């Protein structure tokens, strides 16, 4: 384990998220605040779910391996549900904030739209979730050691990094989908997000059989990406024009 592993895993896991942050969020103070508040909400949900798990563990027999694993699985599922609940609460809060911004603005429109907020909230959740999964691993990877010396998988760090990346992306897309569903009262979108989240977490139970957890997660991510893109107003035509660097009528410029 060396600096190479450290930097490699850091950039795999957080590279896309940081680029998203730098290019889309860092310029606007309001978005940074929404990002940090999103991270906070995720943190609170994690806190509550670990509290429940902790109580369950303390109330049970520590020697029983199967029971502990079962409790852990229960903890994971409960945590997923709680995260989505807090996403809903955050949606409510942001709605109120938008109403406040609209009411106080001069021209009756808020400086930030609910879709942008949804995106930023998703990134916030994702970054915090990724950070909590990955940071201790990264710190350990700087130090001495051999991965998998006791027979575990040697790809531990790499797969953790990839899983973290996919989770960050997924949280971003789920944010968009979830908020869209709440906005337009499409409960099936919300249900889809919850089910997707449960699926991805459930798939991670296959680890260390990484093909069972990583590949489906990436497929789900592509699906969620396409769906979120369509919901945000994208279309095949938009995409084509973006890729061909066309702007409506103007000289070839990178489309935004």
């Amino acid at each position, binding site marked *: 384990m060396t600096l190479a592993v450290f930097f490699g895993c850091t950039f795999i896991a957080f590279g896309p998220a940081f680029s998203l942050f730098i290019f889309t969020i860092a310029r606007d103070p309001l978005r940074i605040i929404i990002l940090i*508040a999103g991270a906070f909400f995720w943190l609170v949900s994690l*806190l509550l779910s670990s509290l429940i798990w*902790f109580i369950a563990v303390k109330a049970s027999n520590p020697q029983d391996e199967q029971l502990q694993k079962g409790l852990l699985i229960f903890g994971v599922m409960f945590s997923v549900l709680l995260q989505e609940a807090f996403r809903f609460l955050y949606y409510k809060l942001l709605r109120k904030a938008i109403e406040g911004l609209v009411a106080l603005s001069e021209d009756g429109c808020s400086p930030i739209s609910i879709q942008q907020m949804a995106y930023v909230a998703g990134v916030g959740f994702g970054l915090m979730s990724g950070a909590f999964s990955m940071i201790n*691993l990264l710190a350990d990877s700087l130090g001495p050691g051999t991965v998998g010396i006791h027979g575990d998988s040697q790809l531990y760090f790499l797969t953790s990094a990839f899983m973290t990346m996919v989770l960050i992306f997924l949280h971003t897309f789920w944010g968009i989908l979830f908020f869209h569903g709440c906005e337009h009262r499409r409960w099936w979108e919300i249900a889809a997000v919850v089910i997707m989240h449960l699926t991805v977490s459930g798939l991670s139970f296959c680890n260390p059989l990484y093909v069972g957890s990583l590949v489906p997660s990436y497929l789900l991510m592509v699906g969620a990406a396409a769906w979120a893109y369509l919901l945000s107003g994208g279309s095949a035509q938009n995409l084509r024009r973006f890729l061909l660097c066309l702007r409506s009528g103007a000289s070839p410029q990178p489309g935004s």
Partner: protein
Amino acid sequence: MSEESEESVPLLPLQQESMASALFNTDQNDNSERRRHDNSERRRNDNAESETNGQPQSNVQQVVEQDEEEDEELTLKYGAKHVIMLFVPVTLCMVVVVATIKSVSFYTRKDGQLIYTPFTEETETVGQRALNSILNAAIMISVIIVMTILLVVLYKYRCYKVIHGWLIISSLLLLFFFSFIYLGEVFKTYNVAMDYITVALMIWNFGVVGMICIHWKGPLRLQQAYLIMISALMALVFIKYLPEWTAWLILAVISVYDLIAVLCPKGPLRMLVETAQERNETLFPALIYSSTMIWLVNMAEEDPEAQRKSKNSTYDKKAPANRTQNEDADADDGGFSQEWQQQRDNRIGPIESTPESRAAVQALPSNSQTSEDPEERGVKLGLGDFIFYSVLVGKASATASGDWNTTLACFVAILIGLCLTLLLLAIFKKALPALPISITFGLVFYFATDNLVQPFMDQLAFHQFYI
């Protein structure tokens, strides 16, 4: 730095530290109050200035009421920007502290305790340890209270020279002595061979430039950087010399004290502020972090370019006092005197403006400039806030079993607390302390993450489950 001198280190600078911490406390409170008003007052200035030049203050109130709606949108617009302007330095300070704690082992090594925390925590029973830490915290807090009251008394009886001397000595200590120790420890950690002559040159330059920047004039960014550095140094000293339970208790009690001192009518800080108001002068802006430059009033030209070029920065400890004597009577950093007026108006109601205050208002930059440069309205945060936030995060990174998770959780909690405090300021528009919300969140998240979340995340990482 030899071992013996390390032990003697606690004794000498302790006076300064406690005074400095008291100072940071008071100043932070004052300046948090001032900061509270900075946002609201500056916005009011935007709308009020066009009307108040030469007119009695009462008109201001009505104009302000009507513009409340626009004010609040402006507040939010300013508010978000101001929050970020505070996020960045607070983050930087914490990053410096955490980086130092993680790399330089000196600051996590136990080398004795301050004389203000005489009871040891290496006791046999948990009960004894708890008792000792409570006593330590009580002593420390009483020292701080005494220092604050001393400061108020000195200020009331106009012993400005004493106060300024005190501040100069504190910053001298921080800039020279503590940074020398810090540099020495960094060199030791990285095994860098260094001669005394080079070190002397480096420390001399660092210290002198720091004194000039902080107490007189200097580029804004350099000033901000120096303030962040001395806050980090101070926080590191606290982290090193405060034993664990004492540190957490002190953090908790300081937040409560902050709350009381700023909000209670008989609180020393409130009295300090009111005295300063009555005299219509600035509180010694010792140790305030400011995010933008303040207009020098005698530079209030019509030309915005000239003004921008001649900008100067805020927190000169002695400079304003000197400047008030040397230059115009209201050569305050324009924000301060206007602030006090508005503050007074808020509290006591509109009163007829004295020639002094009117002159102060008139001397402010005209409306056109201020409306052209809304970004120049800055926020100020007391360095005491920086220090205690950094102490919390630094202690979390030094002693937590959850390590980085706990550090990150405390960091986010503190930022959110800061955000909420600024939001409350925008809503209530009155003096609010900066510590309680952030420190409460920080403490809650520290203990919760360390004891509840860390085992959970450990198990998840062990099985490679993802939530």
